[in-house]
């Protein structure tokens, strides 16, 4: 997927002016937030589970080489194949190679953010394969030729009416207008594709080191059909998605659904271990796991290692007021919201993503709901620090900071400047108590008045009162 993050501001302003987007985002996000809050309140051990999940993830990251090798051996022992991809290109080539070898024509896909990350669909389509997204949200945006705008609800930016339009154009009439009818229509169209598929590609919510299993959770069952009906099942997953045991998986399942969609559990939790065995009634003939690094190993042992705990639940963006205002597309790459504002600069570079760490009020609501306690505001601040050190932050900001520092380091000058400002601003405001315009402060006064000072600073008034 192309990176449009340099256009964040422009895309944000366009998004803010889009009433349909506002309507679509408002409804779904409120649902996620409220349902999560209800379920968390009903589970007294939820906070303890978050601690445990954080600790398990930290343990895995400290011993990632060990668990990845165990996983590799276990997959091989179960008759499957593990492929190691250093970057996006290697991941694409591995998957293209498998598809070519088995002479695939139709490829079905369950939802996989890693496949978005490595731009897989475009590569497959370029080689002439028919690629069908089977997650309803992914299917909708595939028809709309758009990237996902949310990591678990990729079409969250679409209203029901827009989906009706897309389906009518793609499937022919009669136009369906209720959610139930739209879902039924998608099911009927997709059903046929599952049976035709030569290769089924899914993501992996968890890779279990002890058994070599990959696990996906869905609400539609599309993942099951994608991976059991195709001749070949390919799992694409980041190297950090490993957990030691099935026991650990049960811990993560308890926090994932609650954090993501506000459900106690997702409707389908599907385990795949190797290809079909003799006597199995269904399952793929081949089972492949593509382990994608693509920048992750560079985060190990550094200031951003905590980010590798992420279980891709989307709670941070559901609770982020900036995401809620501008939606996911403004962020300009695969991962939006707070987690995306950390990952995108790390994966595609600081220069093209200058706005992302800054378009945040550091209000901390994301961290307060993160099921694995990732200190997202701290990581965003660290990215700002790196921007500052590398001279990427805007020159006007650097100059302003320089002036602020020069004055604030000198208490006498600082107080003089404040006394001056208090009088000047008070004078400009007259008796109104506020200013409507102020040179050099248009960022403030474009939308707000500036409440005026009272005329003297606190320090001078206090000092005068004491003497």
């Amino acid at each position, binding site marked *: 997927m192309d990176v449009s993050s340099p256009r964040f501001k422009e895309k944000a302003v366009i998004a803010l002016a889009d009433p349909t987007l506002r309507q679509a985002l408002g409804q779904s996000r409120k649902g996620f937030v409220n349902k999560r809050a209800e379920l968390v309140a009903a589970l007294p051990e939820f906070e303890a589970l978050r601690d445990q999940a954080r600790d398990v993830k930290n343990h895995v990251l400290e011993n990632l080489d060990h668990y990845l090798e165990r996983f590799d051996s276990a997959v091989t022992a179960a008759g499957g194949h593990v492929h190691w991809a250093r970057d996006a290109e290697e991941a694409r080539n591995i998957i293209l190679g498998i598809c070519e070898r088995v002479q695939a024509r139709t490829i079905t896909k369950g939802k996989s953010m890693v496949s978005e990350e490595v731009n897989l669909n475009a590569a497959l389509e370029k080689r002439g394969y028919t690629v069908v997204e089977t997650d309803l949200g992914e299917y909708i945006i595939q028809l709309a030729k758009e990237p996902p705008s949310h990591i678990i609800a990729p079409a969250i930016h679409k209203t029901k009416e827009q989906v009706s339009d897309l389906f009518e154009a793609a499937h022919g009439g009669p136009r369906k207008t209720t959610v139930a009818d739209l879902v039924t229509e998608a099911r009927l169209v997709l059903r046929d594709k599952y049976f035709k598929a030569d290769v089924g590609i899914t993501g992996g919510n968890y890779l279990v080191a002890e058994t070599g299993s990959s696990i996906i959770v869905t609400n539609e069952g599309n993942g099951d059909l994608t991976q059991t009906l195709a001749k070949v099942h390919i799992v694409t997953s980041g190297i950090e998605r490993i957990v030691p045991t099935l026991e650990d998986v049960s811990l993560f399942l308890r926090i994932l659904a609650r954090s993501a969609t506000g459900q106690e559990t997702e409707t389908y939790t599907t385990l795949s271990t190797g290809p079909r065995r003799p006597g199995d009634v269904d399952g793929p003939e081949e089972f492949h796991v593509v382990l994608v690094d693509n920048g992750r190993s560079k985060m190990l042992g550094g200031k951003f290692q905590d980010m590798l705990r992420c279980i891709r639940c989307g709670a941070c963006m559901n609770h982020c007021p900036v995401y809620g205002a501008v939606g996911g597309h403004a962020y300009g790459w695969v991962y939006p919201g707070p987690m995306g504002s950390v990952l995108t600069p790390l994966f595609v570079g600081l220069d093209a993503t200058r706005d992302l760490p800054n378009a945040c009020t550091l209000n901390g609501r994301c961290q307060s709901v993160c099921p694995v306690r990732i200190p997202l505001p701290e990581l965003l601040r660290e990215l700002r620090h790196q921007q500052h050190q590398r001279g990427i932050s805007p020159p006007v900001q650097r100059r302003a900071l320089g002036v602020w520092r020069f004055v604030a*380091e000198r208490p006498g000058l600082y107080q003089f400047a404040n006394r001056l400002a208090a009088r000047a601003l008070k004078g400009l405001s007259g*008796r109104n108590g506020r200013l409507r315009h102020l040179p050099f402060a248009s*960022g403030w006064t474009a*939308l707000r*008045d500036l*409440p005026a000072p009272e005329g003297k600073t606190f320090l001078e008034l206090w000092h005068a009162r004491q003497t």
Partner: protein
Amino acid sequence: MPRVGLFATCLMNLFRPSVGFAAAQLLEDAGCTVEVPMAQTCCGQPGYNSGDFDAARTLAKQVITTFEGFDYVVGPSGSCMATLRHDYPKLFEDDPEWHPRAAALAARSHELLSFLTDVCGVTAVNAAYTGTVTYHDSCSGLRGLGVKAQPRLLLGSVEGLQLTEMPDAEVCCGFGGTFCVKYPEISGRMVDDKLANVAATGADTLLGGDLGCLMNMAGRLRRQGSKLKVFHTAEVLAGMATGSGIGIGDGEH
């Protein structure tokens, strides 16, 4: 009597000295001796949040030196005081000389209302306010310092005051320091959402514990032509919320 150094936050010092006097009175009523060191400037948060950690460290050292002789440092802002409490020790993580001093100051640094209730044991104030108020939970105080029950406890003791909670009281108002001038359009949407929730309560007064948020919300209210009163919680608790509030001048009662 505990000796408290009052931290005069930048916005309070320049824009709203009455909040400083309200804080001083509340602290004195709680049995503290209040002093205001003249050598103080800014806590350094603008530098820290803009990624200029070096500038933040320089100012942090200034604050530590100025305030380390006091029993406590107290300020009428969750945002600035969270910087002292949480960020100073982090800034000096690798500095064997300054880290202990930063940590010692951090442990004695408090946001005003939580200091009054949690440290001084104040459960009621002697003040009256006629009106229905709603309270915005500023993010740094709420999530950084656990300021949630304290202002409500004290507001509950104000004679004549009725508190009506707004929906999404814990959602950011869109201020975010320099965020609001760097991304005015996004900030504008956030503050409009916040003010819609304020309006839904029917309250005639909006309160909060951080002047940044209050000036953002008051500034937007004034631009919209609203006369809804906006005060810092300390002003109400000290009985000093007698004027028209933030952003309304004497000329237009």
